[in-house]
């Protein structure tokens, strides 16, 4: 990524937000609530998959999402600063 202006900074930030929040929604409300019955037909070790997402998987993904966001934003901040 090249150096960027404030407008691009904000646009990039919004792009990250939309992507990460879509994943956030999918693993919790998608896999853990809406599609839980379909996923429960799949066995995942000793768990039914939908149940596992609702009580374990979604939480692991949440943690990963925040650390990905931290990484992306630190990179964006650096580019933004170097452009000034």
């Amino acid at each position, binding site marked *: 990524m090249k150096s960027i202006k404030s407008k691009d900074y904000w646009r990039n930030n919004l792009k990250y937000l939309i992507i990460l929040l879509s994943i*956030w929604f999918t693993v919790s*409300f998608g896999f853990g609530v809406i599609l839980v019955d379909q996923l429960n037909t799949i066995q995942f070790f000793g768990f039914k998959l939908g149940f596992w997402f609702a*009580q374990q998987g979604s939480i692991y993904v*949440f943690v990963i999402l925040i650390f990905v966001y931290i990484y992306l934003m630190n990179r964006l901040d650096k580019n933004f600063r170097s452009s000034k």
Partner: protein
Amino acid sequence: MSLQFSIWLIVGLTFALYIGIAIWSRASSTNEFYVAGKGVHPIANGMATAADWMSAASFISMAGIISFLGYDGSVYLMGWTGGYVLLALLLAPYLRKFGKFTVPAFIGDRYYSNTARTVAVFCALIVSFTYIAGQMRGVGVVFSRYLEVDINSGVFIGMGIVLFYAILGGMKGITYTQVAQYCVLIFAFMVPAIFISIEMTNNPIPQLGFGSVGSDGVYLLDKLNGLHQELGFSQYTSGSKSKLDIFFITAALMIGTAGLPHVIVRFFTVKKVSDARKSAGWALLFIAILYTTAPAIAVFARTNLIETVSEKNYNDMPSWFKKWEDTGLLEFNDKNNDQIIQYNGNETINELTIDRDIMVLANPEIAQLPNWVIALLAAGALAAALSTAAGLLLVISSSVSHDLIKRIVKPDISEKGELIVARFSAFFAVLLAGYFGINPPDFVAATVALAFGLAAASFFPAIVLGIFYKRMNKEGAISGMVIGILLMLFYMTKFKFGWFGGGDSSDWWFGISPEGFGTVAMIVNFIVSITISNLTKEPPKEIIDLVENIRLPNDTDD
């Protein structure tokens, strides 16, 4: 060592540690009292946030509730963790960039209005009091069981301790005490979980253990589903709430988490914007350790309990059974006089009533773990309740002393005067919280769950729109917050306390429970805010500049 002695020893040692830290880190300026001088390291802040966050409800009630609800309990797991994603992505960095002490300060400045500030103060007070009542109750439950005093005296002892270090240390004292409390509570939560996991599945990691096979070669969850079916309960991994209600409760808890003033304020205590993001990440990681273990404990405890009591003779019950019976949290009513305990999903033949709150506390005894583990659990539960109560007290006292007195009533108050007011309001807040702890509206987690609805319905839209929607003005924000919180209060008091004609679950609007209604009230808040905002005049130029400024990270430091 006797059990009673171990408990007094371990609880005493941890209390001495907290008080020592409080004395070492006492606050001398308002900056230190409100935001710990803005010098907290992101990892330390992550731990403090986690302790602040994980309340008596998380520690004592949650695993128990999941244990009884099975899949339906997922609402608490997803709800109380997913909110941190919203917090890290949508709120924390911008609020830190804005750089004031409190949430009402942000609302008041962003919406250039003391009316908005006052509304925000009242929302913060309502949310925090609803929440703190549950904490004081939790303290009471732990004291009554472990230190053998009655619940009300337990509440008084808890009040005294919180008061001491919240008033002395302010945010600075609370933060460093919370770091210690996190260590105590996570250790206390994990040790029994690991022991029980090894005992039941030979796997030391509880998260994997509850998906493993037990000693009889059957997957634990399959076995539990089988037991449930036999005894007439609904299947553990499926649950019985409607999908719509699960969706709305999860959303209300997530959004509420992101709107809770005592959580948000933690992100004012770090040095830079990037640290605010980092500490949200660390906080969730530290929280996730407990939250992914809780459902495992729920399964272990449930299986153990059923195997210990079901169809067994009452006179052969182990000693923990009698002890918990004495507290009234466990009741055996021998309906058919056969001395055998019939534990059943069918109310007419069921003979055993178990309070959900005891599942975690009694679990080590049910699994026959050594005394020091039981003592540790008592210390952990107290750490969880005290750390959250202290964080909430600080929000209450800073809302009153800073936002109300300093910014509205008496702007010329000296810093010393403001500190005195802050300490006095903390004192009165503890008294009030103690009253609610002695006369609680519902059991611990349900009281807390409602606080989330209130936070979701009031703060979340005002803060998010304040950052992401430049056109948002004071008329929109004020009407949104007022209508949002009143709607939520109406629904909650109607269906929980029977006001406004009351009603039961068949009268719920669209079948949504009071716990999930925060999501509806929040949507209403968003619609009202945006509509009113577009019908009234634009915010002034300097506010647009302020919004543009908080969106950019160009803080070299501070």
